[in-house]
């Protein structure tokens, strides 16, 4: 029962991302979109990458990051909205954190 998590808010101003992380399971995927892109630079992301490196898949919508001048580090896949649609059906359900 995998879950696709859509993260839309900055973890620097709200705690939704923290709540999302607290329920992440191994087969889950995380897509950063909208202000969620800023989370690439958040300490929570650093610890998530360290801890769950090979388990939770972390992706970012490339135009959303680029528009915000957020640099995407290696290891984070850059995707399009069409990919998000595909991920929607590759996982059992979707939770939006906004």
């Amino acid at each position: 029962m995998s879950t696709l998590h859509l993260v839309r808010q900055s973890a620097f101003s709200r705690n939704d991302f923290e709540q999302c992380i607290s329920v992440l399971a191994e087969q889950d995927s995380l897509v950063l979109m909208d202000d969620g892109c800023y989370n690439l630079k958040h300490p929570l992301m650093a610890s998530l990458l360290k801890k769950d490196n090979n388990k939770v898949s972390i992706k970012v919508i490339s135009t959303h990051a680029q528009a915000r001048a957020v640099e995407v580090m290696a290891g984070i896949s850059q995707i399009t909205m069409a990919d998000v649609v595909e991920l929607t059906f590759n996982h059992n359900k979707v939770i939006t954190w906004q």
Partner: protein
Amino acid sequence: MTSIMQSETQPQLTDASTALGVAIINSKAPFSSNAGKDALDVALLFGSFEQKVSLFFQGDGVYQLIANQDGSLLAIKDYLKTFSAFEFYDIEDVYVCQQSLIERQLSKTFHIDNVQVLTNKAFAVALSKHKHVLRF
């Protein structure tokens, strides 16, 4: 709620039919935003259509469950009282995130019965058993 219902809540979690239901995550405090009321309206509607619905309280959403609140002091119509309708609509699974309670220095005294306080892991597992998830 009756003690019979209480004893029924635990087995439901592992029931296969639960995977067809809707989980609603409440993440906002009760009085400053309409989110809690909007979530409740959705929950009761699903209940009235005899759809399985479970309520999750996480982050500031846990404030919705705390005992001894009184919205009337703020001239607000207290929608929290409607939580007592859960029984009527067969909404039996109410889960609250333990970590959120601890962070906010809240005791486990709630204004409704049969609230299940769960660790992050158990909260995630309970959530994963639902077909759809909405979050308010």
